[in-house]
C-alpha cells in the first residue's frame, strides 16, 4: 500500500479493516482481557496505520504491520497501566464467545492461566499461532524472528503448555 492513489488507498485500507479488524480485536482481547479496551486498541491501531499511510509510508505486508502496531499498543498500555490480570478478569465473568458451557469455560480458563505462566517468548509464539491463527511465516513477519525459530518456539511452548495442564489436572 502506498499513497500514490488516495481513493484506492482508502479503499484498500478499509478492506484491510473489513478483513482483519476482528483478528486484531481478538489479538488485543486475549492480551488485555477487556472488550472495551480491546476495541479502543483496534481503533488506535487502524488510526495509526492510516496516519502512516497518509504520510506516505509504503506498507508491503499490511497484516504483519497491523499486528506489530497492535503489539506495540498493547505493550505501551501495559507499561502505563497495571496489566489486566486474567484471574481478575475471569472472576469478573470474562467469558469468550463459544464458552457458555460451564465445563468448557472452566477448561478455557485453565488453559489461559497455564498460557499466562509460560516463558514470555513461548507464550507469545503460542498465542500468535493458536489464538491469532497466524502461520509460522506470518509470525516471523510480525516478530522479525526467523521462521525456523518461530516454529521451534511454538513447538516448545505447546509442549510446556501441555505439561502444565497435565500437572494441573
Amino acid at each position, binding site marked *: 500500500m502506498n499513497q500514490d492513489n488516495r481513493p484506492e488507498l482508502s479503499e484498500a485500507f478499509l478492506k484491510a479493516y473489513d478483513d482483519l479488524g476482528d483478528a486484531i480485536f481478538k489479538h488485543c*482481547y*486475549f492480551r488485555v482481557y477487556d472488550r472495551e479496551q480491546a476495541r479502543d486498541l483496534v*481503533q488506535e491501531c487502524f488510526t*495509526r496505520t492510516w496516519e502512516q499511510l*497518509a504520510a506516505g509510508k509504503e506498507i508491503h505486508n499490511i497484516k504483519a504491520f497491523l499486528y506489530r502496531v497492535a503489539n506495540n499498543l498493547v505493550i505501551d498500555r501495559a507499561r502505563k*497501566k497495571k496489566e489486566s490480570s486474567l484471574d481478575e478478569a475471569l472472576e469478573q465473568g470474562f467469558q469468550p464467545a463459544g464458552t457458555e458451557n460451564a465445563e468448557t469455560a472452566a477448561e478455557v480458563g485453565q488453559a489461559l492461566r497455564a498460557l499466562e505462566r509460560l516463558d514470555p517468548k513461548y507464550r507469545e509464539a503460542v498465542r500468535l499461532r493458536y489464538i491469532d491463527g497466524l502461520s509460522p511465516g506470518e509470525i516471523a513477519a510480525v516478530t522479525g524472528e526467523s521462521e525456523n525459530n518461530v516454529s521451534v518456539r511454538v513447538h516448545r511452548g505447546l509442549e510446556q*503448555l501441555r505439561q502444565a495442564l497435565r500437572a494441573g489436572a
Partner: protein
Amino acid sequence: MEDNLDNIFGKIGEVRMTSGEKASLRASLLELTRGSEPAGVRATEDSRPSFYRPSMRSLLFSRPVFASFLAGSLLLTGAGVSYAAEGSLPGDALYPVKVGVNEAVRGVLAVSPRAKAAWTATRVERRLDEIETLAAAPGVASVDTGVLQQALQQQTREASGQLDRLTDAGDHTAAVEVGTRLEERLQKHQDRMARLTKHKSGKDRAALNALTETVGAEAEDLDQQNGQSEDRLAETKPELAAPLAAERLNAAEDKLHQARELLAGEDRPQDDQRQEVIRQDLDRADVILDEGRRAMKSGDLPQALSKFREAHRHARAARETIESAGTDGAEPSASGAEGGMPDRQPKEDRHDGGGQMDGGSQPDDRETDGRGGAGRRH
C-alpha cells in the same frame, strides 16, 4: 485436558467484535480516511452504510412504525430481536428494544450497589458509543439527537447517584474505580468528538456541538465528584491512595507531555492570544505538578491527588486549545457563540477532581510502525 487444546483454541478463536462494534469502528475509519484525503476525492454520500441514510431513519423513527414493528418483532423472534437490537442506534427501529428491554433487563440483574454503579456507568458508555457512531457518519442532524442528549444527561446523573450510594456505604474503592472508569470514557469521548466534529459543517456540526456540550458539563460534575471520592479514599485507605496518587501523577505528566509534543508538531498558525492561553496552561500545569509532588513526598495524599487532577485539567485544556486552532469562525457553536477560543479553562477554585488517566497510548518516536510519527492522537 491437554489433548483438548485444539478444541479450546478453536473455542476462544471465535471471539470477534459485535456487528455494531465493527460498523461503528468502520464508520470512524471511513471518516478518518476522508479527513486525510485532499478535497475532491471524498467518498460520495451514497457510499455510507444503509442504516445511516436519513430517509430510512426518518421512516423508522415514526412512533406508529416503531410500536407495531417492536410488538411484532418481540412476539415473533424475542431473543433474536433482543440480540439484533444491540447494534442499533437512535432512530433505528430496534433502538427502543435496546434501551427499553435489553438495558432494563441488565439493570434488574445488577443487584449489589457495586454492580448497579458499574451497570449505570456502562449504560452511559453505550450512549457515548452511539453518539460516536452517529458522529462518524454523515447526516447526524436528521436524527433526533435531543432524545440522546436527554438520555445521556439523565443516565450520567443516575450513575453519579449510584456512585454517591457507594460512597455513603463506605465503599470508596469501588466509587473511585467505577467513577474513574466513567470519567476516562467521558474524556476519551470528548477527544474523539473534537476530531470528528472538525470535519462537519452546518446542522451536523451544531447537533454534535450540542451533544458535546452536554457531555462536557456532565464530565465536569463527575470530575468533581471523583475528586471527593478520592479524598475519602485517601482518608480511609491511605494504602490504596498512594498507588492511586502515583497513577494520577503519571497521567498528568503524560497529558502534559502530549500537549507539549502536540504543540511542537503543530503546523497550523496559533495567534498570540491563543499562544498565551496555551503557555499559561502549560506553565500552570508544571507548577501544580510540582506542588503535588511535594505533597506526595510529605505524605499529604489528598492534597497530592487534588494537585495532580488539577494539573491534568490544565494540560488537557492546553491540548484542546492547540487542537482547536484552525476551527475559528468556521461555524457558530451550538450555543450561538462564534467559534474561537474554547471556553475550556479549568476550574481552579472548586474542590479538586480532575486528572483521569488517559487510556490512550502516548505518542512515541521510537518506531515507525504505529508507535511514533506525526499525526492525530486521542
